[in-house]
């Protein structure tokens, strides 16, 4: 069996787990919860196997050191690793906090991401490494960056849930913030989904410039009507989330996820993600750049955005410890931090140009 079959098993297991987690929330039967966990663990095991098989495949094709053959050199591989870190983080939380309700939120993300990778027609082929990437620093720099991205993703979702739990008053700032954020987030995901579908149907050569194609089917459509409709749709979605967001607040509250737990989870994820990001993303990146190009810092867009992300999380930590920020304010900072993270990861590669261009599609 090759790696793609294992990835297939993982996707299916995650999607089944998602359905089971939702059933668990609906019926509250411990047995269903155990089945859901078992499915997630199965998916995770297949995912892990797939990752290492791909590593081996890469090693056999590239014929270079095993440490240099880590399959983390393009968007496809990085998304898969990101999902892997996310599931690992979730399993740790489930085990530590003995609470399964969070799974209903994480497994859909994992299943959708893997399915999205599949339908998007992203380039899945193994490409040999260009000379700049042939370094042992690749392993440390890239894995640590993605581990921190995954922890930031967890802090993002717990912070959003925190806001959902604590603000039920529709006119309050916190409520508006989380509902609009969620609305925008979902709209952008849907728009990207539409992009990829049209991209496939129209049949541009796969792997061609997504850079010039992003949002062309919706917000940046050549037809003013379609573009306008997309914005109206986005506004409508935000309104819907805003109007019915309290239902979600109640749902989360009923999961026995207290706001204290959510706040603690947000902080703990950042407390792990921040040092890992600093060391692996910024410091190891700088050392590698110094050895490859003779410049440890060039203000390349990826570096600059990493620094911005770092600033936001540094702000989170200082606001929390020096100013004693708690509650809505600090949760908003965590959410903003993840937007910056997402842009560092995807936006820079899809929209801007620079030295890290190999992360694109």
């Amino acid at each position, binding site marked *: 069996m090759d790696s793609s079959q294992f990835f297939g098993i993982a996707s299916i297991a995650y999607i089944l787990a998602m359905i089971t987690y939702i059933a668990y929330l609906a019926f509250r039967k411990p047995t269903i919860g155990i089945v859901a966990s078992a499915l997630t663990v199965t998916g995770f095991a297949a995912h892990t196997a797939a990752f290492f098989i791909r590593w081996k495949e890469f090693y056999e094709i590239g014929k270079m050191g095993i440490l240099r053959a880590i399959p983390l050199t393009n968007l496809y591989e990085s998304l898969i690793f990101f999902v892997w870190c996310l599931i690992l983080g979730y399993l740790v939380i489930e085990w530590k906090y003995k609470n399964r309700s969070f799974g209903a939120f994480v497994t859909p993300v994992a299943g959708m991401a893997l399915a999205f990778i599949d339908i998007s027609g992203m380039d899945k082929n193994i*490409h*040999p490494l*260009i*000379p*700049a990437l*042939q*370094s042992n620093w690749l392993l440390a720099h890239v894995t640590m960056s993605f581990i921190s991205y995954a922890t930031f993703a967890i802090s993002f979702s717990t912070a959003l849930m925190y806001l959902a739990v604590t603000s039920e008053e529709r006119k309050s700032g916190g409520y508006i913030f989380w509902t609009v954020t969620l609305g925008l987030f979902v709209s952008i995901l849907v728009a990207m989904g539409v992009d990829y579908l049209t991209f496939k149907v129209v049949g541009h050569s796969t792997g061609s410039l997504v850079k010039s194609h992003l949002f062309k089917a919706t917000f940046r459509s050549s037809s003013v009507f379609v573009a306008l409709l997309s914005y109206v749709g986005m506004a409508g979605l935000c309104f819907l989330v805003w109007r019915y967001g309290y239902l979600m607040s109640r749902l989360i509250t009923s999961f026995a996820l207290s706001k204290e737990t959510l706040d603690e989870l947000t902080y703990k994820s950042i*407390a*792990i993600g*921040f*040092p890992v990001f*600093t*060391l692996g993303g910024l*410091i190891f990146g*700088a*050392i590698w750049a*110094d*050895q*490859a*190009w*003779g*410049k*440890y*810092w060039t*203000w390349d*867009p990826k570096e*600059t*955005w990493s*620094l*911005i992300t770092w*600033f*936001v999380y*540094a*702000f989170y930590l*200082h606001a929390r410890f*020096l*100013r004693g920020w708690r509650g809505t304010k600090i949760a908003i900072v965590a959410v903003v931090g993840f937007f910056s993270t997402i842009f560092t990861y995807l936006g*820079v590669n899809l929209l*801007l*140009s620079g030295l890290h261009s190999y992360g694109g599609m």
Partner: protein
Amino acid sequence: MDNEKTAQSVGLIDRVWKFFSSITLAVVVFALISLTSIIGTIIEQGAEPQRNIKLLAKFVGPSAAPKAFQIVDALGFTDMYHSWWFVTMLFVFATNLIVCSLERLPGRLKVARERVKPLTPEQFPKMPIRREVVLKDNPDKVRGAVEAALKKAGFTAEATEGEQGLQLFAERGRYGRLGVYVTHLSILIIMIGAVAGIFFGFNASLNLLEGTASGVAYRPGGKEIPLSFLVRCDDFSVSFYEGSDTPKSYRSVLTVMENGKDVLTKEIEVNEPLKYKGITFYQSSYGFSPTKDSLFRFSITSAAGSKSDVQLKFGESFAIPGTSVMGKIADFSPALGMDDQGRLFTYADMMQNPAVFVEFSEGGAARKSQWILTRIPETWKTPYGTIEFKDLWGAQYTGLQVRKDPGVWLVYLGCLIMAIGLYAAFFMGHSRVWVLLRGEKNTTKVTVAAAASKGRAALEEKIEKVMKSLGQ
């Protein structure tokens, strides 16, 4: 009068100090650096004006774009990270960091220096973690067991005899409380390293054609920088992944010359630079620019089995040993490809698939001629022997990044200190444990209290283990 003046100047210093110690300033500078940096990632830095005019046209329309570019350029956004105002912001950030840290450091240092003390009876119940157990033994015997259990958990206990009974106390990771300041210090060290690099070092580039040498490198603006020695490129080569034009590696053989003598030869590639006298040469790019003097290098194995190497210029001829056949170099392509109809053409302007067209003749009479390609061994075979086209030497140049940075070791040191500081700040909590032993007849009441500045759950687990090992 004089007194007033001093009071005023003290007031001024105080006010400046206060200004730089404010967290509001930190937030404002953070925000400004971030926001302007975002603009800097959108506007292409140090690029041709035309590219940014095109970009701006998307925002303000094509007619206003040139004007917008002028404004953006005048404000320094086209080379933003080196503009005076951006550098000023970085310095304000550094000053803010120093002042803020200095303000809070003495208090923290005091806390970090203070060793753990025995607790008073009133303090015991106030500790966040508390456990109690009664053991069947006298305090002296229990003491050994408690000390051993604490030792296992990583605590070396001291003891004191008080009116409440025997108290054991211990602590770990006291200096973890300073992690934040160590991290701040590391940022400053990195910034000092960067400044040292800017003032006492340089970043330059150098293109060296195979066989040529240079004693200077060039700054981005074109300014020459003398190197105090010569560096020569002996050879440059690219290897490709099989069956593709993706480069697998590119490498240059460089020789350093001083006083007319070769002193050092090294093969460099990406991620493997050459260092000499504080100057580092990085392989960064390559290019193709053939001259009349470029040499075609062949390795010939005649039908009889004798081997010989030849090198010659374009248009020249060579003899194949053991025969009367002559080969003449009549055509060359750096990247020979074949189109759908089977016609040959040159598909790239780099040496991706070098090919040479050799016209053979014998005693003046033309023989069959053929293309010989470096990367395709089948084309080396001729009726007169195997002719391997090894290289067109003196036609490729190596693109080197030349750097001198006396501050880089400070940057590395700062990185190391930052790693230590972050570890201390996030993973090293200051934890303290107190154990009170009170004898009652033949039993001993053991009261355990503990507190952690970080990682309370982890400490609680440790205490749980201590209790368990005492219970047995």
